[in-house]
């Protein structure tokens, strides 16, 4: 079934504004960005391959440091008048020699990648507003986005390293609920 048969597009494809790019709504209204792959058709067998999750972040310096500590690195940075985009990928999956490429070459190379990236969107100035805060999707009455996920060999060591950075953890009550489901 073609996506167009059951999806309302927020921004339809083939507009003059953005060619090779469209935004669809999923059944819950989450935005799904559809981007033209940068390699020949058939190189990657799936018509769709999961490519990115975008998070709006208040202070991108803090966020980049956090995700770098989780083994990611910035593979592409795009700066616009009032916002910037930072694409991060797990270092172990990044076998591209991106450091020698210009931005257009990086975009071409990343557009051929199968593995996903984390896209951090920084709207300039939010980092200086003490009252500014993004909804994380898990607050009472504002539930939506859930979480990202990372695989590690040793969860305890990984948690210790995150704790040392000063960041907290969710209470374990959810684990009991998950355990009940598995019995």
């Amino acid at each position: 079934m073609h996506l167009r048969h059951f999806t309302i597009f927020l921004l339809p494809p083939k507009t003059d504004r953005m060619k090779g790019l469209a935004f669809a709504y999923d059944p819950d209204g989450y935005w799904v960005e559809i981007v033209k792959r940068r390699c020949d058709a058939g190189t990657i067998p799936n018509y769709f391959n999961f490519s990115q999750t975008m998070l709006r972040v208040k202070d991108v310096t803090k966020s980049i440091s956090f995700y770098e500590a989780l083994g990611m690195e910035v593979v592409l940075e795009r700066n616009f008048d009032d916002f910037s985009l930072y694409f991060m990928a797990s270092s172990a999956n990044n076998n591209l020699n991106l450091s020698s490429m210009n931005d257009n070459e990086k975009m071409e190379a990343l557009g051929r990648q199968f593995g996903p990236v984390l896209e951090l969107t920084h709207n300039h100035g939010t980092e200086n507003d003490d009252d500014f805060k993004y909804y994380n999707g898990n607050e009472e009455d504002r539930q939506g986005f859930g979480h990202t996920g990372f695989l590690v060999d040793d969860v305890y060591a990984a948690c210790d390293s995150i704790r040392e950075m000063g960041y907290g953890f969710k209470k374990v009550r959810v684990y009991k609920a998950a355990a009940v489901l598995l019995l």
Partner: protein
Amino acid sequence: MKGLAFAYDPDGYAVEIIKRGGIEFGDKKIL
């Protein structure tokens, strides 16, 4: 339960940390 935790990133987004190779619930291992 071993092999799963949820951290918060700087904006409060939940980050799930999962043991590579599976999660253990008592003597049950979920791959």
